[in-house]
């Protein structure tokens, strides 16, 4: 693990150029929080509610489909507003990539990204082995529990909603959970929360399985194997085959739904190996 990641990219593209998408992502994450906060703070109501369910400009309902699934499992038949809201959110992530939520919207990403940054700075290498599939088991558990208990048990401790709700409506002791996640990611498992456990991420992983918007290592022949993209990628297993699997017949597109489309790989690559692309035009190129 190198201490200075993306130095070549910074030298070549300048600091701004090598942090473009990272900055955009932070603007998106904080901007969404700000839109929710402007209501209670300054009485400017663009977005009401929180990530679990909200209303945009007093007209468009948006509901977290995972939340609604938990509610359904608990035995409640929701009103139409929530169902339409969930369909809107579902369609958005179906198109733009499910885990776009994780890297561009979810506030917990700020915590886990800083934990990973500190991990690199402190050169902490130790990481307990945990399967990345764990999150799907947790997802199953969070959907089965409401069915048995009749209440959304996961939502009692869900750090994503606790964080987002806390910022808008008051945190209380919710920060304890968030510090817990930070330390877990820092000391125990690298990319522990977002990459291994979070059932919301697992849910959006499934939602975005067939998303047309993907990152492609379209110039993989130019890759100089500096491995900076592997260092910054929150799901580095998705890079391996698209980058190095040409001989085994793998295409350059990062097809795995684990990919969060955070596109930090584009930032840190000095060779411009990656670009954002859609599935369909690539198919057309292949056919030629």
């Amino acid at each position, binding site marked *: 693990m190198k201490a200075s990641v993306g130095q070549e990219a910074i030298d070549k593209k300048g600091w701004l150029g090598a942090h473009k998408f990272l900055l955009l992502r932070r603007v998106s994450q904080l901007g969404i929080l700000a839109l929710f906060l402007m209501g209670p703070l300054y009485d400017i109501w663009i977005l009401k509610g929180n990530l679990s369910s909200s209303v945009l400009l007093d007209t468009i309902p948006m509901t977290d489909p995972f939340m609604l699934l938990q509610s359904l499992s*608990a035995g409640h038949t929701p*009103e139409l507003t*929530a169902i339409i809201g969930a369909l809107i959110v579902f369609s958005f992530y179906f198109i733009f990539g499910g885990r776009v939520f994780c890297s561009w919207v979810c506030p917990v990403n700020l915590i886990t990204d800083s934990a990973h940054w500190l991990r690199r700075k402190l050169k902490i290498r130790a990481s307990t082995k945990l399967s990345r599939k*764990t999150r799907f088991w947790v997802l199953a*558990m969070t959907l089965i529990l409401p069915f048995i*208990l009749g209440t959304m048990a996961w939502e009692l401790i869900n750090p994503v909603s*606790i964080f987002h709700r806390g910022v808008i409506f*008051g945190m*209380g002791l919710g920060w304890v959970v968030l510090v817990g996640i930070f330390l877990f990611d820092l000391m125990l498992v690298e990319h522990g929360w977002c990459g291994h456990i979070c059932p919301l991420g697992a849910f959006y992983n499934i939602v975005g399985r067939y998303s047309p918007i993907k990152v492609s290592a379209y110039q993989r022949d130019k890759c100089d194997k500096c491995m900076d993209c592997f260092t910054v990628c929150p799901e580095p297993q998705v890079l391996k085959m698209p980058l190095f699997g040409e001989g085994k017949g793998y295409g350059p597109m990062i097809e795995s739904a684990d990919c969060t489309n955070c596109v930090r790989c584009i930032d840190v690559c000095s060779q411009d190996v990656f670009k954002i692309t859609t599935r369909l035009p690539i198919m057309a190129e292949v056919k030629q």
Partner: protein
Amino acid sequence: MAAKKPQAPRKTSRRQFITDVGRGVCGSSLLGLGLATYSKQSQSLAAQCLRPPGALTEEEFLAACVRCGLCVEACPYDTLKLGKIFEPVTTGTPYFDANVIPCEMCEDIPCQTACPTGAISPELKSIDDAQMGLAVLIDRENCLNTQGLRCDICHRVCPLIDEAITLEIERNTRTGFHAMFIPTVHSELCTGCGKCEHACPLEEAAIKVLPLEIAKGELGHHYRLGWIEKNQAGGSLIDEVLDLPDRLPGTK
């Protein structure tokens, strides 16, 4: 891209598969067990926490509420709050403490309109039919009216004055010739808005709004009240009392 994929993807051995599944199931079950315990414990709503008007029964409410806070933002009086983790309210669900800010009983019920899931049920048509709780004169000993004073504040602030709270006259046995005006709540009309509790001038309110399940008793289902049955049947359900002849000493 499917055509370009290699013929045989990496195979998982049966042993590996069973180990992985076992780990996943055990790990998440353990986490689930902890969660279940915590959720069962946190399900009992503290007595001072009331749900918004029209909220489903507590059990149904916890299944329906997505903890979005739209009702809280819709509430013009900052009455509603969202429960925080480790508080005696299920995390993220809306409640109010009548002692802090009571429900102002808006006629258009904005919290109900804002609710996307129906956890605050749209079936409540008029705010006057709300049953957020029930006011109970819980401490008769300290209520000023039971001292023979004419405080009457709870009665006067009640949005349904002389209906939900009436003043019932009782004899003041202390003085022997004065009256006491006892605030009396009628459960079929009280909405549980909590204005009486909020307005009570005592250090600790003598009248408090409690959740219905705590405040209300329930008659045994087999109980029949004779006078009601009699009215419904249009006459006594049993035969007239047998009038046996009186046998007094000295008579045959």
